[in-house]
Each structure stands twice: as C-alpha cells, then as structure tokens.
C-alpha cells in the first residue's frame, strides 16, 4: 500500500509546479516581444551564417573535378582532407604558430596589464591607449604596413643595422618569415588581450591586497600569487580566443604573400589552402571539405583546452 501511494503522492506534488510553468497570456505576449527583438539578428544570422554553412556542408559531400562532372561522394572529401599532406602540413604550421605565438601574446599582455594595474599616474592611461592602438588598426592595413617595414628597401632595418655596420636580417626570407609573422600578430593582438586582463584585474577587491600587504607580501608576490590566480578564468578566455584565431590564421600571411611569394606558398595555412583551392583553382567542393575539416580541428582543440582548464575557468 505504502509503496503505491508514495509515487502517486509525489506525482500530485509535481502537478502544481507544472501548472505554474504553463505560460499564461501575459507571459506569451512577453515572449512574442522577445522574438520580435531577436528577429533582426536571427534573420541575418540565419541568412549569412547558418544557410551558407549548410550549403557549404552539402557542397563538401560532392566532388567536381575539372575534367568530370559533379557527383555525390559522401565523406570521401573528408578522408582525402585528413590524408592530404598539404593540409596536414598547414595544420602543422598553425600548431607551431599556436605554440610560439599564444605564449608570446599572453606574456606581453599579462605583464603590461599587471604593470598598468599598479600604476596610478597619468602615464598609466596613456600607455594603456598606446598598447591598445595596434588593435584599432585594421588587420589588412597592419599587415601591409609591416610588409613595408620588413622591406629591405623601404624599411628602417637596413639603416638601423647600418649604424653598427651590420647587415639587416631579411625578414621576408624563408627562414625568418615565421618570426616576422609572430611579431605582426603579437603587435596587433597583445593590446586587446591586455585590455581583457586589465579589466579582470580591476574587478578584484583591493581589500585583498591590503590584507596581503599586512601579511608581509611583496608586490611581486601579490602579482603572481594573488592577482594571476584570481583572474585565471580571463586568462583561459584569452587563450581560447588566441587559439581559435591562430588555427584560422589567414589574413597576415595572405597579405604578406604579396611581397614574399616564395616564402609563403598558397597552402601555408589550412585557411589559405581552402581559399586558393576555391578561388584560384575552382575546387569549391574540396575547399568546403577543407574548411569543415579545419572547423572540426578547431572545435577539438578548443574543447580539449577547455576540458583541461575546467578548474581555472570555473566551468566545473
């Protein structure tokens, strides 16, 4: 008896709460307004992101070569992509960029933010602006500008090195192009990440620092033992931004290729490879597959990184 009554009673207990959730007229009207406000965004989102994505995915399931027609091949393009040495080599290149470039940007951004957080003079505001300004320069313009700075003829390097009687390094040569690109990206993005980190630092209760000073902590200890751990979730976010951006590396090498076609081949990064496949070699189907394959890689990398840092980012 008791066993049969118990579930029934619990059923009954749930019933009122369900009634509560049933949308009344007022709620429904509110919901309509909500949809209305979301509509402009949803429409654009659907037309310019979701539909093209679906279309591109459909394209990636077909193949059409120059000499033969269009035909359905299912996942063949993906198998081909993940065994394509050019694509894999491009992935290797961006992985190398990720290993070098992300720590470099993080370090610059973190140090700048920590220093600025401690300064209270007018110099602080001014420096903050100066460090942030490269981010305000459009990426293409920035890359073009660095192209000129790196140029042996127009750039300042040859005259600066000339003062010491040295030959300037060839920034656009095959051996140096990697470092030259790391430099451009760090210059451009470190300021942006600095602002994110700085904002997080500003959110910490200053009372904690007072307590730390009373306990005899030095400035360095406050910075490394208190500030950095307390903003770890922002740091994780910055790394995620940088990781996704680096895996999709495109604009800077594509622009710099204009002055260094030998050192930067058309398939330097996976995104450049997809671009040249589609628009130079008319292989739209395989280019779509490469794009989705890159998307999968970005997703996997980001997912694993978030999983590994779930404690720091506060996801767990």
């Amino acid at each position, binding site marked *: 008896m008791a066993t049969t009554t118990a579930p029934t009673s619990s059923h009954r207990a749930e019933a009122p709460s369900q009634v509560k959730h049933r949308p009344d007229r007022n709620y429904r009207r509110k919901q309509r307004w909500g949809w209305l406000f979301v509509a402009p965004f949803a429409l654009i989102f659907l037309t310019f992101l979701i539909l093209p994505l679906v279309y591109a995915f459909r394209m990636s399931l077909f193949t059409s070569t120059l*000499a033969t027609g269009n035909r359905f091949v299912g996942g063949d393009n993906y198998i081909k992509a993940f065994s394509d040495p050019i694509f894999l080599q491009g992935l290797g290149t961006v992985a190398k960029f990720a290993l070098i470039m992300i720590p470099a940007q993080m370090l610059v951004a973190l140090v700048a933010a920590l220093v600025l957080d401690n300064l209270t003079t007018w110099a602080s505001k001014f420096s903050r602006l100066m460090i942030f300004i490269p981010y305000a320069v459009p990426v293409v313009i920035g890359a073009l500008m660095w192209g000129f700075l790196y140029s042996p003829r127009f750039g300042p390097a040859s005259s600066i090195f000339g003062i010491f009687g040295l030959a300037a390094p060839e920034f656009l040569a095959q051996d140096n192009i990697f470092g030259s690109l790391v430099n451009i990206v760090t210059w451009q993005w470190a300021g942006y990440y600095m602002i994110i980190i700085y904002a997080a630092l500003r959110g910490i209760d200053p009372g904690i620092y007072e307590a730390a000073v009373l306990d005899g902590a030095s400035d360095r200890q406050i910075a490394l033992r208190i500030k950095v751990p307390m903003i770890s979730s922002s740091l994780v976010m910055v790394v995620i931004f940088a990781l996704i951006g680096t895996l999709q590396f495109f604009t800077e090498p594509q622009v710099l290729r204009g002055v260094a076609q*030998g050192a930067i081949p058309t398939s330097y990064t996976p995104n450049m490879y997809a671009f040249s496949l589609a628009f130079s070699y008319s292989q739209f189907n395989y280019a779509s597959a490469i794009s989705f394959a890159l998307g999968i890689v970005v997703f996997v990398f980001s997912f694993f990184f978030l999983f590994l840092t779930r404690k720091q980012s506060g996801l767990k």
Partner: protein
Amino acid sequence: MKAKFLASAGIVAATAVALTGCSGGSGSGGGGGSEAASCTNTIVNAEAPQVTVWAWYPAFSEVVDQFNNANDDVQICWTNAGQGNDEYTKFSTSIESGSGAPDVIQLESEVLSSFTIRDALVDLTEFGANDVKADYAEGAWEDASSGDAVYAIPVDGGPMGMLYRQDLFDAAGIEVPTTWEEFEAAAKKLKESGDGAVIADFPTNGRAFNQALFAQAGSVPFEYDSANPQEIGIKVNDEGAKKVLEYWDGLVKDGLVATDDAFTADYNTKLVDGSYAVYLAAAWGPGYLQGLSDADPNAVWRAAPLPQWDAANPVQVNWGGSTFAVTEQAKDKELAAKVAMGIFGNEEGMNLGVDKGALFPSYAPVLESEAFANKEYEFFGGQQINKDVFLDAAAGYEGATFSPFQNYAYDQLTVEIYAMVQGEKDASQALDDLQASLEQYATEQGFTIK
C-alpha cells in the same frame, strides 16, 4: 513613448535605405533601364540593347565612348572588375553560381582554356570569328583558339624584347648582348665594374615570364585541345626548360642576377633606380616602366631584341597579352560576339588603345601600319622600338598552348624555382618535381595523361 520611439527609428532606417539606394544609382549614365545602373561609362543611345563588358585596359573608357558613339544598334556597358586574377576570381565565382558574369570579358590568353573547360566561354566560329581571322597576328590568333574552335578575339600581345640602360652599359664598357652567352659575359663584366648593379632580375614568381624564357629554348610544356578536354600532355621538364633553368640557376649561384619577387614595390623601384641594368620585358613593358615613380632622372633607356640561344635561328616568345571572350551567360551571344570583335577590331578603337593605353596591337591593320612602325618613343630617346624590336618579335611568335589549370601550374612553378634559388635542389630536380606534381594534380582532376 515607446511606440513613438520605435516609429521614429523606423523612419530613420527607411530614410537611410532610401538614401543609400539613391547614391548607388547615381553612378549610372542616366539611361537604358535597370541594367545601366552599374555602367562606369555613359550610354549614348539609350534605346539600343546593351552588352556588359568587364575589362581593365588602360584608357579603356575612351575606347568605350568611341564605340558607343559609333554604334547606334548596340551599346557597351563597361565595368572594371579588377586586373588579372582579381577579375578571374569574380568570373570564376559567377560561373559557379550560374549568374553574374558579364556578356563580354577581357581574359589573358593563358587562362582561356581554364575557362573553356568549365564551359564558360562561347565558341565564336558560329558567329563569324573565322571571317576576321586574317585581321589578326598569327601567333595571337593561335593563342586564342584551341583546335578548330575560337574562344576569344585577340586584342594586345606581349612579344618580348630587352630594355636596357645604355648609360650603365657604357660606364661598364658593355656591348649590347645578342645571345645568352654574351648576356652572361656582360653580367660578369657589370659585376666586376663594382657599382652594385646586377644585369637583371630572375623573379621566382615570374610565372608567364619564366615560361616564356623556357619556350625560347623549345620547351612545349602542355598539349591540350578543348575538343578533347579530358586529355592533356604534360612535359614541363623537357630539355628546353632544363637548359634555360640551369642557365639561370648558374647566374643566380654566381650572384650575377637578383632573385627579387616581381611586381612588388621593391621590384618596381629597383627596375627604375639603376639596380638592374636590364629589364627583360614584353611589349607592354615600356608603358609599365614609364608609370613607375622614383626613377633615376639620368637613366638612358634603349630597347634591343631578346638575347638568343642560337643567333642564326632566332626564336621569338610572348609574355602576356589579352583577348575578349564571350561568356556562356551572355543573353544575346551574337550581339556579344559582335561587340567582342568590334571594340578593338577597327582602326579608331585600336589606335586609341595604342596611343593612350600603350597597347601592342594584335589587330593587323594597325600592327602593320607605317605609323605604328615609325612611332618614336620619347622615353627611349626617340627610338622606334616597334620597328627595332617588337614587330619582329611579334611576327616570329608562333603561339603557345596553356593548360586548363594554368594558375595552379604557375603557383607550383614558383614553389619549385624558389626551392632552387634557396639551394634546396638543382634546376633539373626542380623541373622533375614540377612535372610529378602537375601529373598528380591532372590525374586527381580526372584527366588522362597523354
């Protein structure tokens, strides 16, 4: 309050749309229906049907105006959709999407088969192309046709010659080289004279330039006929190509030539500031040179024929040159074909192109005219460069065959030559690797290799 705010926001948005709509339309020539909205030029006769044209020729607007004034029954609606690859990218996208292509399009002859294989161009023989065949230089016509089909009407050519700095040659005591052997000797002499100039640049991204040099030693990289589009012959590593590339590899290793990328700001400056004593150029090169800034004011430029491998049997080659083709998307193909043949297919139009745009004409009545041969060029100290150099080069050019994936082939050529210049492989290996990669690509694309 809220409703009022929303309403006024709506009005603002509507006005904004209306305003931008207006400004978008104001570029039109003020006539000829909705299509005219995108014309760069003024439509003279609003009643006549219009043919859309994409082209990037210099001074083309004057040619279009001349055409529109001279023709009552058809009008050109011209757009500059970018130069070379920029335009091809747009054309390629509109082929894929099935709409958006113009009726008539300027294409370099080297990319014609890349578009015919995608069924994007109309065979002009059914619209009377063969009737005007006699009006065009033979090599140029050959480049625009494939087998019996004619896919474009030639406009301008790029027969090659050698532009050189007489002042630098004199200072180093160099005679103008007529063979590649003499060219190498001159390069050594110039280097020993020690004023820092090298004889020329050998760009790894020379693309058609490199290919033209190979052709001079008898290299025939591709065999292709659009009547049989699934079959292709590839021989980019033949003897001629190897001979030429080994020669240049030698010059590079001895530091006798530069290896700067072509068409960069650095390269443009070096062309005119005395860093290179020679510019191995096509017939459009003189026009290109004159357009560059930072030129050495004391430069004395002269033109001479391209050095030869065998002075007794000179071989003439071509670099660049373009054509007008009719696209499959053209609404009225016959009318479009008429425009393609008519724009530069008359003396008025072609003369404008020659005088204002520095084109080297493929249209025989102008090409073979006294006036063109005797034209004196101030930039070359009054030298008649057409008579001295380019007319012979054009007459001797027999045409070439390009692959239906020429852009890919050029990109791979750049990769291989760059590797060679970096010392990673020798010339012969570079061309063998190129051959292998192109064969693989062709097979992947479904071609049968002959």
